[in-house]
């Protein structure tokens, strides 16, 4: 009896999380203007989407910023994790606390702080400011992911390498990096997702000269429900699902050995 109640409860929560998304995806394939009447399967909204120049431009911009931001954030975030894990230095505690604070800091606070910064140094809002902002909010997620992986790390290997005369740089490249590689890859994928989906920070730090998908979607959704938005959202949802799935597999793979 209790098992049935438990199973029912769990299913109900999953339904709450997934039914809206599924409905959205299903209606992206609906051959009707009105989102609620099912008129048969159709790909016309996807076709219409790919004929929309400004949306495609925004999509290219989003992917460009996503790839660059994820790559930069992964490089900086990984080095930071290794530094926090390996070295004892003045301000180490402050640094690791700062990284955690950045993850829970409300997005809107980060958005306006960066806006104030960019205005103070007279930087025009656009590609560069957006990229800098995205790198900033991605770094802590990479650092935390990599730090989690480093915690199960056998320090004797590093000591052995040191005894054999390896330099810090060699130790990082030949020993640490290969072992944390799944976490680094996961960090990259998660950063890319974060960058691709972000609304709150981007809202403040990009200008009309550089449009990106989430803000385009926001503007379209404000005007109401449109089948093209469903199609676009469906593509982004499937993309996110695949990326997160891959990232999770990478983080799990080593952990279970």
């Amino acid at each position: 009896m209790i098992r049935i109640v438990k199973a029912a409860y769990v299913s109900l929560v999953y339904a709450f999380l997934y039914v809206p998304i599924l409905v959205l995806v299903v209606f992206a394939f609906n051959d009707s203007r009105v989102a609620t009447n099912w008129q048969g399967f159709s790909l016309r909204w996807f076709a219409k989407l790919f004929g929309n120049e400004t949306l495609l431009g925004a999509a290219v911009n989003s992917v460009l910023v996503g790839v660059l931001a994820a790559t930069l954030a992964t490089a900086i975030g990984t080095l930071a994790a290794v530094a926090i894990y390996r070295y004892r230095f003045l301000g180490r505690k402050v640094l690791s606390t700062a990284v955690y604070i950045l993850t829970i800091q409300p997005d809107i606070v980060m958005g306006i702080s960066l806006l104030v910064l960019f205005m103070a140094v007279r930087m025009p809002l656009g590609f560069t400011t957006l990229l800098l902002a995205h790198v900033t909010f991605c770094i802590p997620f990479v650092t935390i992911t990599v730090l989690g992986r480093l915690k199960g790390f056998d320090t004797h290997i590093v000591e052995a390498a040191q005894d054999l005369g390896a330099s810090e740089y060699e130790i990082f490249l030949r020993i640490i990096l290969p072992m944390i590689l799944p976490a680094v890859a996961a960090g990259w994928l998660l950063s890319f997702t974060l960058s691709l989906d972000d609304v709150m920070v981007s809202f403040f730090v990009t200008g009309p000269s550089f449009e990106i998908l989430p803000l385009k979607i926001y503007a379209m959704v404000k005007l109401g429900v449109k089948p093209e938005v469903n199609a676009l959202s469906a593509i982004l949802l499937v993309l996110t699902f695949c990326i997160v799935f891959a990232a999770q597999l990478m983080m799990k793979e080593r952990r279970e050995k």
Partner: protein
Amino acid sequence: MTETSLFKRLSIGVISLWLVFFAVVPAGLVVIVSFLSRDPAQLVAPVPTFENYTRFFDPVFYQVFLDSLVLALSTALACLAVGYPFAYILARSRRRAKSLMLMLVIIPFWTSSLIRTYALIILLKANGVVNSLLIALGLIDEPLMMLYTDGAVLIGLVYSLLPFMILPLYAQMEKLDVSLLEAASDLYAGKVARFFHVTLPLTTPGIVAGFMLTFLPSFCMFYIPDLLGGAKTMLVGNLIKNQFLTSRDWPFGAAASIILTVLMVVLLAVYRQSSRRLEREPAA
């Protein structure tokens, strides 16, 4: 030796500089701006004032904070009420099922909450899926007005933030030592006593962490009230957004965001306190 310290210096240096430039300096600038006056032409005039903070005692803004507080609290509590039993069941399920169940929570955690909010609009609008379903079932004759209400905003926030409550709760419950529960039973603790004296205290850090991750964003997710709420629904997030983008009153917006930050710091302190207490007396 020199080469060693070069790599070390580089790895520490890059992140430190980045954080200084893009986190510390901007935060400092916001603090400064919050104590300056507004200037229509240049956004900010270098005239120091406390007015940006005293303005929160103005009933209009005071009300926005109060409404936001109520909504954020309701969101966090609703997430806790739904998420706690869920995380408990999740942490106790069999290994194989567990990783799939966990993955199904993690995926929405990373999915764009804007798109998920849009999905809710499709369900809730007047000729939306829920209304059509209810009419088809003969339960109602007229479509219910669900969208553009405070209820819709609450549902939207809970829908977006629920995974942020479940995951930290789950992480804490996973660590829960089952032998402590068995010991409680051996000492004739009933189910209720066992929950209140063992499970609840041991999972408090998870509750506080989940609370922090749901309560704070509820203040800020300006697009959820924008898209799901009525014209009246205004949260601190919308207030800040408007100060920066519409009414161009940066000092006031900066002051509002400082207040949010102070709130975050208070919650962080509570979290540290609760997890530290747990470390000191592990089986309290």
